[in-house]
């Protein structure tokens, strides 16, 4: 029994051993054969997919990892920070209305108690706030909703919702409450909306990305400033604009150019409307970045602009040669026009400016002298009275009706500082609430917007990447050779899954991009610590891609553009080489294959993603193309950037409509 019983296992063992030997033999043959086959197949596959024989070998994961469409709008994991971006004081001085952009709410603060008395949901990232002259109505813009809501000032009940220009930001209400004036940033328009007939709105062209508006007390004059400079060819001096609007006729009076200015985000008008003050950054992008000293890269400036008469314009520094106050974000004027206050978002500072001294300086200076003063960092000591420290990322400003109190929105501290405008110091602080803990992304955003990372605090990451986007300028970094390698600032929106980074694609991840070399090349100060770097990367990876934008009247054009984008043959029926098809390099959903390509612009450059193209002009690695159209009509004569020369004008328009919708 024992022997009979034991024979079956032995047979099984022998069988198993035979199977194992066979499998091993098979593997011995199959693995090398498979490996050899894979090696033979891989370049073929790579060539098929890229249409190129020179594509670098990458891992399977590089292309086949599950990649989602990047998040659009909102920061994942944000615990509900308030992030106040807009302030307005009621005419009786008793209430402060706060646009809490991060929490999609409008807050009403009782200024006697310093507490939030009420709040209401305002979807779509509320940004700007204005109160009607009678104090009854509050207007709030919704940046992502393309809307303005009219809210009852007492109850905070939403009374009306109006669709306005794309990405409405700054706004103002007519003294009689009949019309709204709204800066529509990505529409490049100022919208004038009759409140009771918003469908009869007037849209005025107003430079690139109108950001803030100021209305004269009589409502006759509107002044708007633009965040970005107009796209210009490499080597040309950039300029921003200030737009003056005759509100009665609803026509543009003037578009005043400001050479070398951009990021103009704040504007205030004098009581009589005779002059305006605007904030701006004076850039020196045509000067190679060999040093970050004496404003060689940029400095903050205050623009003085006469609205009538001689209509003189002066661009005057807010910094001094050894002390910088980056990212001027807003300006207000006291009712008597004697003092102005400027919030420096990157410097945790508000500057107090003696407007009388500033005007005297302008009055006694010739135009040539004023031009020279724009680059004289020694002149600010003549009109800057004080630097008032605040908490993180001060932005919006509002004055009490009598001008005795200045309210400063400390965006990344969820608080409002109260400044005594006579003592020029913070005398109180309003805690708006919000989460007490700081997430890695929030800490990273504080770093991103803090110019203290740079030598003497001259600029922050945000100075070149407003809202994570591009400043639209090309720069010359000396590390690549002076005068030879202009590179346009790339948008950071939606880039989480799009490594490598840098136009030459040398940085495999964001930690490398923002690491010690970055400090040596650009910030010229201590590099980020490892913990700071981790926080910063977390924040940058959380910057959402811009929302998709498909206006109803362009839906058909976009659909036609989609066909062109994915076409495999020319109109004449000739098959397009794989390498010359749009999706080969701009592979959805990221719209990049993350490989370098030579599109005939002087070398191989990292293929950029296409998110937010409508706002990230100029294009190509050195910004040589001012518009999307120019990429193919001017800079693609030999079809090196896709075969496009067979496209008709209408087809190209459709393709551009598609690209502007990403």
């Amino acid at each position: 029994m024992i022997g009979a019983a034991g024979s079956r296992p032995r047979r099984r063992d022998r069988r198993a051993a035979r199977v194992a030997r066979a499998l091993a033999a098979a593997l011995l043959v199959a693995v090398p054969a498979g490996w050899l086959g894979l090696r033979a197949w891989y370049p073929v596959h790579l060539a098929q997919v890229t249409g190129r024989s020179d594509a670098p070998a990458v891992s399977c994961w590089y292309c086949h990892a599950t990649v989602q469409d990047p998040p659009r709008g909102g920061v994942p994991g944000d615990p509900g920070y308030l992030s106040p971006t807009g302030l307005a004081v009621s005419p009786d001085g008793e209430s402060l209305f706060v646009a809490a952009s991060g929490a999609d709410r409008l807050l009403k603060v009782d200024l006697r108690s310093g507490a939030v008395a009420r709040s209401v949901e305002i979807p779509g990232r509320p940004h700007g706030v204005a109160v009607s002259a009678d104090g009854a109505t509050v207007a709030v813009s919704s940046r992502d909703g393309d809307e303005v809501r009219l809210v009852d000032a007492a109850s905070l009940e939403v009374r009306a919702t109006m669709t306005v220009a794309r990405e409405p930001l700054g706004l103002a209400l007519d003294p009689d409450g009949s019309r709204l004036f709204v800066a529509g940033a990505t529409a490049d328009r100022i919208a004038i909306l009759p409140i009771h007939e918003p469908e009869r709105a007037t849209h005025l062209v107003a430079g690139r990305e109108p950001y803030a508006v100021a209305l004269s007390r009589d409502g006759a004059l509107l002044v708007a400033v633009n965040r970005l400079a107009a796209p210009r060819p490499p080597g040309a001096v950039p300029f921003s604009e200030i737009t003056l609007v005759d509100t009665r006729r609803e026509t543009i009076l003037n578009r005043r150019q400001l050479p070398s200015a951009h990021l103009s985000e704040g504007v205030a008008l004098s009581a009589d409307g005779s002059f305006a003050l605007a904030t701006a950054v004076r850039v020196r992008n045509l000067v190679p970045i060999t040093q970050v000293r004496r404003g060689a890269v940029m400095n903050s400036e205050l623009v003085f602009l006469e609205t009538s008469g001689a209509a003189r314009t002066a661009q005057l520094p807010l910094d001094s040669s050894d002390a910088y106050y980056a990212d001027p974000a807003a300006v207000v004027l006291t009712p008597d026009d004697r003092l102005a206050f400027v919030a420096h978002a990157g410097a945790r500072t508000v500057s107090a400016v003696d407007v009388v001294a500033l005007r005297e300086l302008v009055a006694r200076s010739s135009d040539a002298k004023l031009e020279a003063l724009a680059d004289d960092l020694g002149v600010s000591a003549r009109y800057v009275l004080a630097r008032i420290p605040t908490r993180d990322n001060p932005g919006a400003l509002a004055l009490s009706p009598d001008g005795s109190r200045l309210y400063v929105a400390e965006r990344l501290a969820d608080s409002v500082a109260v400044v005594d405008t006579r003592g020029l110091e913070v005398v109180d602080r309003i805690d708006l609430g919000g989460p007490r803990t700081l997430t890695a992304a929030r800490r990273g955003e504080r770093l991103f917007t803090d110019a203290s990372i740079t030598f003497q605090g001259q600029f922050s990451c945000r100075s070149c990447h407003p809202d994570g986007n591009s400043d639209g300028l090309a720069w010359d970094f000396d590390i690549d050779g002076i005068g030879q390698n202009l590179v346009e600032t790339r948008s950071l929106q939606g880039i989480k899954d799009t490594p490598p980074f840098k136009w030459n694609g040398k940085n495999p991840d964001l930690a490398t991009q923002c690491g010690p070399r970055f400090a040596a090349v650009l910030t010229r100060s201590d590099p980020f610590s490892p913990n700071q770097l981790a926080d910063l990367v977390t924040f940058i990876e959380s910057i959402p891609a811009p929302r998709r934008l498909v206006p109803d009247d362009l839906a058909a054009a976009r659909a036609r553009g989609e066909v062109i984008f994915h076409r495999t043959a020319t109109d004449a029926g000739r098959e397009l080489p794989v390498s010359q098809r749009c999706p080969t390099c701009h592979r959805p959903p990221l719209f990049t294959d993350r490989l370098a390509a030579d599109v005939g612009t002087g070398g191989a450059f990292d293929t950029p993603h296409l998110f937010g193209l409508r706002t990230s002009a100029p294009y190509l690695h050195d910004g040589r193309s001012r518009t999307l159209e120019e990429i193919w009509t001017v800079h693609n004569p030999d079809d090196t950037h896709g075969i496009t020369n067979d496209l008709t004008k209408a087809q190209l328009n459709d393709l551009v409509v598609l690209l502007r919708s990403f």
Partner: protein
Amino acid sequence: MSVPRIVSVLLAAGLALAGLAGAGCSRAPEGGGPPEDNPLVVTQVPATTPLPYELDRLAPLDRYPLGSRIVLVEPALGGASVQPLSAGLAAAGAPAVAPDAETIVFAGLRAEGSNWAIYEATPRRTPRLLVDTGTDCLDPAFLAAGKLVFSCASGDGETPAAARTWSLYTADPRGGSASLQRITFGPGSAFDPTPLQDGRVLFSLGRRRSGGTLPGDAALFTVNPDGTLLEPYHDAHRPGAWYRARQADGAVVSLLAGTEQPKVQLARLGAEDPEGRTPETVSLHTEASALSPGASGAGPVAVRATAAEPLAGGGLLVAGYAGPAGAPGTAAIYRREPGARLLRVAFDSEAWHEVEAVALAPRPAPRGQPSRVDLDSGTGTLLCLDARRSDGVLGPPPDAPAAVRVVVEALVATGSLPGLAPGAPAAADTALASLGSAPVEADGSFYLEIPADLAVRLRTFAAGDRPIAASGWFWVRPGENRMCFGCHEPRTTAPVNRPILAISREPSRLDGAQ
């Protein structure tokens, strides 16, 4: 109590205990106390030494005669606790306190006839030698990440003082001799370095003071810790000698010795306007009663400073003599509180002159600066944006013809100026040589490749070799891309944002530079 404060108190306590064993002091410092009672690190010079009241008139090596020492003083105890920190050394001076207040460094002379070196004061032990270059080194100061900057003299004790020049060096005490790096390259002497909060090194550049004579001109300059980007800190052409500059809360205070008369003032240069159209003079007076109880009816007495240090929050620490020249008494340490008008005596001893003091208190650490120096490169570049841009006084006048050519001149060592090995400061014997010339573009720009670590200056010429202007002396470090905005342009000007013709091609190589 903050952690740094605890650390400083513990260090003081440790030093005091060491002093109890070694110096027989009867009282140990107590913890706590207001910030103004921070321990002081003081340089004492024997009162038997006949010191003039203005130390700027002394050659640097005469500042600290034999017997001078570094001590730790506890003002809270009325000066009863005086703990030597330089025990075993023949002389010591120039103390500096690390940002965390845990480390003190100073210059020490091991024995008569030896050279001055940089030491660390170590509680309970004899001072630890940190840096010895084999030549005299003084004035250590802390940079970011624990690095030190100091000035070292050329020559040796046999060299006449007037013939010795001083250069700045940096070293990482943890990095050994390999970390020693020269960062200034003359001509003239660089001395009294101090860190600025933004990471730069502020120092005096000029003719070094020599014994018994009026001071030479010395202006304040800045340089990066790696020796790049030498720049004047203020109007460098103002006469007088600026020295012993120190920064706190953004503002810089510096002693200023006039050339008209041997009078020393304390001047303040504000952070917002360091050019100082008129530098603010800081009044230094003390109550006569503070010096002598019987003099209670007398008015304030001037204090002639030998050293001063601004304190965080607006206070001031001053070492000096009170009363007119020749008055009896010794130099003492004074303190002025924020907002106060007069100095009060913080510490005085009859047996010693107190000639300088620094608070043993935490202070903001200077920012670091990543170095772009490439020691494998023998050259750097200079890009001038517009040679026509000028102050109209020292630079080309407004009606000057356009420059078409720039000549680079160098101070070539008849001794060993170029190519110095670390630790071998420059010799004073130099000669002027032309390194070659390059074209100036129509927009006034030029772009040059220049031999590194060599004192050079530029001279511009119009057509017909008509001289237009000459620059001051400067140098470029290996691999440095230096940029100047004009030719003696006002120091406050930023570049004009415009296309630059010179960078459309490679930098001009100087045919005379080998």
